[in-house]
């Protein structure tokens, strides 16, 4: 009925997800890593943001399965030949197909039932200037002026209830699991979570869950009858754009940081371990790279990528594929231009490590250089890699917006926060002000970046003991777990 389209970023996103699972399994087996990660989740902000990130990750994964539906074979087509749709869609598109199909003609306010602009409509044979009714927003209302508020309230309320029920179900499931693990009664466990006892801040996590569930529930319920965040200039639903932008942000954040790793790790460890001329050459390389102002280097590389893509227009079957290759190459460019910082850090750390006894011992036993680097140095600098990766993640999401504004970001046809902000710039100067695209981009982006930042801080504090001293602490901190 359809054929899958394997986009470059899809494959890498899924590969990353699989890697995360494998890594998770490895963490569970290794006591040292498990302790550090447990320390991450002991931090309430990190725990709560992990939930937000997980939700975004689910959206990203759903948006990373692309397919092209099969067309009804046209008359005259030779039998056996199969035609597919011109556009590739993702699973997320399928789930949100209501929002895609409900395209209006132009701007409309959030949750409104009429468009923003006045239009000349004929009512009973007379031409009247009025704001036209929307196709989707409040379409079910027969007498919108009176029904609108009550419809909003009832939809909102049912969504709220749906979310709460969902949250309660998940909470009960969590209590049951915890009760089994602790070998305690269900009620007892729930009470202990409520009193915020124990190592992991389950209470904060549950509150986050309740907030997320009610927000999602309400939004889903309202989106059934309205454009929750309004529509943009061509009538597209803003909520849909914001949800699609999450994938772009996630792909840029994750792929770019991952792309820095091979060069940074291999060269950094080599420079630190071998020293001498190898070190000099590698230092020269990264000094050259880092001495070009970052944004100029990226702009130069992306311009070249654009020329290359313009030269080969026939390489891609669909617009989505083309935009995707551009995104993939943008991540590669960000990775290839951004490895200098991590490389410098790893080199310095390796210089320290190679003098330590265990490396010297391995050397004395006649272990080869490459084996020492892989078995003895790498595991001991891996935490730096992790910290830098998560710290860079959020700045790259922010960077994407700037790059898109400058004109070297993602393809204009691809939804991204940068693109939304770019359009919002003009919309904010219209009269009446079109603020909802901007507000939606702001809300989603800040939530995502804040979550990633808080999570990154948690990871850094857990893996780098020195950083813990800089945590702001109140004189009276949270009561420690009840001591028995």
């Amino acid at each position, binding site marked *: 009925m359809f054929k899958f389209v394997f986009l470059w970023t899809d494959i890498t996103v899924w590969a990353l997800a699989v890697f995360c699972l494998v890594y998770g399994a490895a963490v569970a087996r290794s006591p040292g890593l498990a302790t550090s990660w447990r320390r991450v989740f002991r931090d309430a902000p990190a725990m709560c943001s992990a939930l937000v990130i997980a939700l975004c990750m689910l959206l990203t994964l759903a948006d990373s399965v692309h397919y092209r539906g099969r067309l009804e074979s046209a008359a005259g087509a030779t039998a056996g030949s199969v035609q597919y749709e011109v556009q590739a869609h993702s699973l997320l598109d399928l789930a949100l197909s209501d929002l895609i199909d409900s395209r209006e003609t132009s701007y409309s306010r959030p949750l409104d039932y009429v468009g923003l602009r006045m239009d000349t409509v004929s009512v009973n044979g007379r031409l009247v200037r009025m704001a036209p009714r929307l196709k989707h927003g409040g379409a079910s209302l027969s007498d919108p002026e009176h029904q609108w508020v009550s419809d909003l309230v009832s939809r909102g309320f049912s969504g709220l209830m749906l979310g709460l029920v969902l949250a309660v179900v998940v909470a009960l499931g969590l209590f049951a699991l915890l009760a089994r693990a602790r070998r305690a009664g269900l009620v007892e466990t729930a009470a202990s979570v409520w009193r915020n006892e124990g190592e992991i801040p389950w209470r904060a996590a549950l509150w986050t869950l309740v907030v997320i569930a009610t927000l999602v529930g309400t939004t889903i319920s309202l989106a059934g009858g309205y454009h929750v965040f309004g529509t943009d200039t061509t009538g597209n639903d803003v909520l849909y754009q914001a949800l699609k932008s999450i994938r772009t942000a996630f792909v840029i954040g994750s792929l770019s940081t991952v792309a820095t790793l091979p060069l940074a790790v291999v060269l950094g460890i080599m420079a630190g371990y071998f020293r001498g001329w190898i070190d000099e050459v590698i230092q*020269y390389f990264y000094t050259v*790279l880092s001495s*070009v102002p970052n944004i*100029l280097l990226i702009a130069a590389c992306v311009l070249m990528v654009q*020329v290359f893509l313009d030269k080969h227009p026939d390489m891609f079957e669909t617009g989505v594929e083309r935009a995707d290759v551009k995104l993939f190459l943008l991540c590669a460019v960000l990775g290839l231009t951004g490895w200098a910082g991590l490389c410098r850090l790893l080199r310095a750390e390796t210089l320290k490590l190679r003098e330590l006894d265990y490396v010297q011992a391995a050397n004395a036993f006649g272990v080869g250089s490459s084996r020492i680097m892989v078995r003895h140095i790498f595991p001991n600098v891996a935490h730096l890699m992790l910290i830098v990766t998560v710290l860079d993640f959020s700045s790259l999401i922010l960077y994407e917006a700037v790059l898109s504004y400058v004109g070297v970001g993602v393809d204009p046809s691809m939804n991204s926060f940068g693109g939304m902000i770019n359009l919002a710039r003009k919309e*904010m100067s219209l009269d009446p002000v079109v603020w909802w695209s901007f507000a939606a981009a702001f809300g989603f982006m*800040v939530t995502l970046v*804040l979550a990633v930042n808080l999570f990154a801080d948690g990871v850094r504090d857990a893996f780098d003991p020195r950083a813990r001293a*800089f945590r702001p602490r109140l004189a009276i901190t949270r009561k420690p777990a009840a001591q028995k």
Partner: protein
Amino acid sequence: MFSYLVRRFLYGALILLGVNLLTFFLFFTINTPDDMARLNIGGKHITQDLIDRWKVERGYDKPLYVNDAKKGGERYTDTIFWERSVSLFELRFGRADSESAGDIGPEVARRMWVSVQLALPLFVLQVIASTAFALLLVMFRHTRLDFWGVVACVLMLSISSLFYIIVGQFLFSRLLRVAPISGYVPGWDVVKFLVLPIVLSLVSRLGTEARLYRAMFLEEIGKDYVRTARAKGLTETAVLFRHVLRNALLPIVTSAGSYLPYVFLGSLVFESFFGLPGLGAYVIDAITKQDFAVVRTMVFVGSLLYIATFVLIDVAYTWVDPRVRLG
């Protein structure tokens, strides 16, 4: 010190050579001058004649690295690579690629002045504001002020600078009408155009900087000399301002110094949002017009400034901390 500076400058020249090779590879090898010509001329009917003329006008009508038609040294000197590299090192930037734009050199000099007008006050105020805020947090460490201050920092650094600009322009220029939305005039009147971008840029970077400086101060506060100073009976203010601030100056100089190239290069986003004709806006124009000569020049100028900055930072170390000896 002198021999150190000479060595640094020689290494800097070596780095610049590398940058030049890198940019040349990027701009001429990945895509040939023919591709650039085709893109730059645009339109559907591009004849080889047009391309050749475009190349001759800009001096791109030579082989890239090796000219087999010539003999001796000219085999290597009569090439695009040689000519472009030499002219860059002599700071002759030549003409821009696009049809209407003129010579790059005078344009860069003129626009750099505009960028400096925006970025120099910003640079100074940024260091002062971030240090002051961080000191405030450190002074009240382990209190609610510190806690919520850091929370505010994290929140502020999670917001894209574009949001600050758009909201700021909307609020102050459109609703309150206290500052013009954008524009530029030569002379002292420019101040009224600069206030808003400076304030917004200040706020947009305050979160990142203040949090970083706070960590630096806290690192110093844990050291023995601070304990000694307290044991002598100095007040907390004296300890902070006379001892901690001075010693934390070294990392602050490094961190603030890395912004120094941008004092001359300007900010791409802020200049284009506020209509200031600086170097940042120049780069954006070049990118939208796909003017490769300008982008290439700016990459070179950028790294030149960057290398100069790092020599300056090293010199500043000796001034901030007399224990540091360059040698």
